[in-house]
């Protein structure tokens, strides 16, 4: 009984056909996860922070807390 001739061509292509889609899927999943778990929440956080930001209220709170040296708390 003779042995079947082993396949010795296209091994890299076969391996790539199997592993490359998995590698791309993992890479894209991690990138998309990073985008929607870090990047977009960060952009929303900045937009939210400034949407209702009251400069005078924040400034006065910091002023009364004595944060500034150029402006003293009211009453001093």
């Amino acid at each position, binding site marked *: 009984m003779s042995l079947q001739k082993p396949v010795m061509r296209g*091994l*890299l292509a076969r391996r790539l056909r199997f592993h490359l889609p998995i590698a791309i899927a*993992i*890479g894209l999943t991690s990138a998309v996860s*990073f985008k929607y778990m870090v*990047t977009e929440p960060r952009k929303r956080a900045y937009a939210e922070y400034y949407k209702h930001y009251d400069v005078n209220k*924040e400034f006065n709170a910091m002023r009364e807390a004595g944060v*500034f040296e150029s402006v003293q708390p009211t009453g001093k």
Partner: protein
Amino acid sequence: MAYPLQLGLQDATSPLMEELIQFHDHTLMIALLLSTMVFYTILTTVTTKLTNKNMLDSQGIETIWTIAPALILILIAMPSLRVLYMMDEVNNPHLTVKTIGHQWYWSYEYTDYKNLEFDSYMIPTQDLIPGQFRLLETDHRMVVPTDSPVRMLITADDVIHSWAVPTLGEKMDAIPGRLNQTTFVVSHPGVFYGQCSEICGANHSFMPISVEAIPLIHFEDWSTSMLAKI
């Protein structure tokens, strides 16, 4: 400002720094994509049960892994150049402040209208009052108005220093005999810290920068009072 175990960039206090943070997130996302792909590839390579590894016929993959990185680099370069040019936009500053690096303190000059000049030395650790930050506080802060484009002209008196305030996205070398210009807008009031960023001698770590941003009307009162003191 900086806090213990910090991993990322400080929160932005200027629109440009917000752009820089978004660009950093974009680039980090791409780096994460590539890193996970490479990690998976390495993992499969070192755990294979095959004794003969895949060889030969590599023209295809050589082409792919030449063109793909080129495309990825273009994807990084486009937002990079966008932010870079945004940093150089002319924005008609309302105020110009000159800062000079010395060994080992900064001096600030507000010469738009009258001559207001003062030095800014670090407050030594033993002189700090509770609540102040070690190695960051100065005896005189650089005060600027909020929501106003400020032009900084930066130079040095002796050796090279570097004026840096991370939360504003600012870092510019102070070089003797040269005037470097940078501009920024402070989005909200507060006190923002930085440190000299170019080795300049024994006390390089002990010449911090502190910027105090207050509304314009209070800034005018401050400059009047400072001029009266001098």
